[in-house]
């Protein structure tokens, strides 16, 4: 019998078999974050994204509408486009130069008469369409051409995500980063939504917010979370904000939802951040962070920084100091909450291999973890049933 980690067997976090099933049943069957809307600023711009087992590209047509197609040449399956770029009117496969227009129609096949003397019905060889939409300033793709709309997918949780309008904010490029965590994607999600750990692992890094007064819950598979500023931060809040406000007064607090599967947002009075998980293997996950700030002048940023410097110079610090520190690189001495989280995730993942592992009871503040495990199971069950296959 499998060893259980609450609702899931430990193998769900360690084996290729579970990873493959999740890729097929979760990440290939749901809306996938593909970038920020401004990544495709003009007609002709395109980008591609891996969504489970599918590689999908998005291109903006001359009507400024986005089209999404599976990034597979209809000839031999070669990927048509790489990464990001710009085209005028057409997309050409590098292998045999088959060329498609931006509607996905196959418009040219080199040496068509001699290579296909029996004729070739190009009208049956268009690119396979996928779905694309923009929501809260983010691009999303879905492998199916007639996917349920984003209203149906995110509608119930949207009112709980905060008053931010990401489309009106500007990216802070220095904050853009991508890194890998040696842990299963669900370990990373569970860390993100664990309310209990906030006051402990991050006792000295995130205490400007009042974790004891956090409000959190679920709308379908999506987790929502809000907490107010802690009293010391809330007193003179307008002065203490490190950068200009991105939401109108009197809204305050931190909204930290985790949208299924693995799309985290962290938004506060003065910033909007995304935390995108991509499972790379059973025990490896990539995180992509991007940050948007107020569309304000350099002067306004400097002014807010000066105003708030008094609060921040005496705020925070490492969790451990003195004799507890294990060497120069100890994340517990970093004073950086991300380093603290990465450390916790990777240590936990290592322990999953131990024969002596036995998971203790879940605390109240860990109820999101067990709920997320349920969401994973339920989503996979539902998809398997919809696919009419018993191959879960």
């Amino acid at each position: 019998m499998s060893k259980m980690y609450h609702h899931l067997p430990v193998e769900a976090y360690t084996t290729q078999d579970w990873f493959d099933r999740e890729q097929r049943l979760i990440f290939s069957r749901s809306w996938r974050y593909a970038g920020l809307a401004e990544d495709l600023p003009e007609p002709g711009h395109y980008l591609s994204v891996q969504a489970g087992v599918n590689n999908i590209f998005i291109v903006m047509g001359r009507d400024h509408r986005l089209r999404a197609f599976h990034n597979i040449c209809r000839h031999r399956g070669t990927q048509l486009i790489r990464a990001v770029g710009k085209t005028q009117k057409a997309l050409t496969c590098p292998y045999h130069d088959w060329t498609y227009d931006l509607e996905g129609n196959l418009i040219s096949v080199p040496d068509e008469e001699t290579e296909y003397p029996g004729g070739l019905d190009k009208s049956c060889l268009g690119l396979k369409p996928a779905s694309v939409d923009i929501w809260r300033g983010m691009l999303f793709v879905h492998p199916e051409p007639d996917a349920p709309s984003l209203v149906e997918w995110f509608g119930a949780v949207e009112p709980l995500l905060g008053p931010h309008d990401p489309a009106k904010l500007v990216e802070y490029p220095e904050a853009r980063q991508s890194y890998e965590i040696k842990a299963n994607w669900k370990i990373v999600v569970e860390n993100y939504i664990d309310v209990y750990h906030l006051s402990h692992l991050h006792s000295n890094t995130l205490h400007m917010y009042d974790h004891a007064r956090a409000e959190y819950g679920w709308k379908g598979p999506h987790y929502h979370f809000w907490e107010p500023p802690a009293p010391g931060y809330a007193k003179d809040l307008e002065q203490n904000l490190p950068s200009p406000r991105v939401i109108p007064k009197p809204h305050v607090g931190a909204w930290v939802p985790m949208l299924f599967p693995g799309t985290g947002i962290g938004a506060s009075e003065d910033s909007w951040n995304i935390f995108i998980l991509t499972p790379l293997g059973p025990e490896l996950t990539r995180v992509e962070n991007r940050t948007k700030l107020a569309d304000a002048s350099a002067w306004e940023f400097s002014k807010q920084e000066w105003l708030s410097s008094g609060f921040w110079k005496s705020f925070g610090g490492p969790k451990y100091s003195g004799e507890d520190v294990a060497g120069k690189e100890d994340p517990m001495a970093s004073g950086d909450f991300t380093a603290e989280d990465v450390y916790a995730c990777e240590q936990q993942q290592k322990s999953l291999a131990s024969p002596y592992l036995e998971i203790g009871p879940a605390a109240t503040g860990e109820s999101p973890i067990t709920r997320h495990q349920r969401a994973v199971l339920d989503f996979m069950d539902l998809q398997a049933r919809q696919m009419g296959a018993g191959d879960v």
Partner: protein
Amino acid sequence: MFEFHSLRVAELNAEIGGGATSVTFELPADLIDRFAWHAGQHVTLRFVLEAQEQRRSYTVSNPPGAPLRITVKRESGGLVSNHIADALSVGDRIEVAPPIGRFALEPRRHARRTHYFFGAGSGITPLFAMVQAVLTDEPESVAHLIFGNRSADTILFRKELDQLVTQHPDRFTLRHALSAASLWSWFSPWRQGHVDAQAVKAAITQTPPVAQDVQYWICGPGAMNRDLSSGLNDLDVPADRIHMESFGAAQPADDGVQGCAASAVIRLQDGQHEISVQEGQNLLAAIRANGLTVPFSCQSGVCGACRAQLADGAVHMRSHMALAEGDIAAGHILTCQSLAQTKRLTLDFRS
């Protein structure tokens, strides 16, 4: 196909200084279902004026759920439109046939769409109903209206549209184009000139779609519609996203093509008849003037009741909204919109 009901005029309102009239009908409870409409559809009115039956189709200028109302622009020399503007009183009864039409927007609560509306003049009437239907019943969707008029004082529903902008600042944008703006007007339009392909391109670039299910709704004179749909084609807009209705459909569109005098063979169930067609006369009028009975309803090319098979000869159709491309290829014509282009014609009504 059509049944007419006698409806009481509940309200009459002069619009744009008397240049148009809004007529609101009272709907008795037992007709509410029968007269349910989709935003963009039209009703057919039947009058007897100058001892002749006259039928005209007018768009319902309110969204579903609101009172049944039409808005009729006064046409110079227009028999029916002037009658509506000058001779109607509250309490009068008018023969009205229930709403029909394929130019219709059906809002869906869970749809998340971007709708671009391009209209000119009285072409606003269906678009006005559609914009309101989207704002009320498609809460996640956005509407952009680009509205062309001659001058500021001929803009229908100007106050109502401004009100919608105030009520839905995040979901509705309104841009006016004026082709003959007065120098003395305080009103400053988004653009001078007609709503043309350049205006379409500028509008889309200015407010590109956020929701990616994009629909384009065009309603104006035939020439504008042709220009806009070819403009959208140039931008690679797929044809199935473009919805269009020619306006001025209430009056036969005078596109300058003249009909010649002809003699026509009319094949009916009861046999074959030879009639003469006067120069400039539409075929339905000629058939009726010769005492023959054929089905017809709207007399404006939208209902399709008067369709026939053209077995021999050639005609020019002023409008053929009720026919699909395949029908036209198969030789179907709308007799109320057809002018003879050859001296001999054969029409078959038997199918």
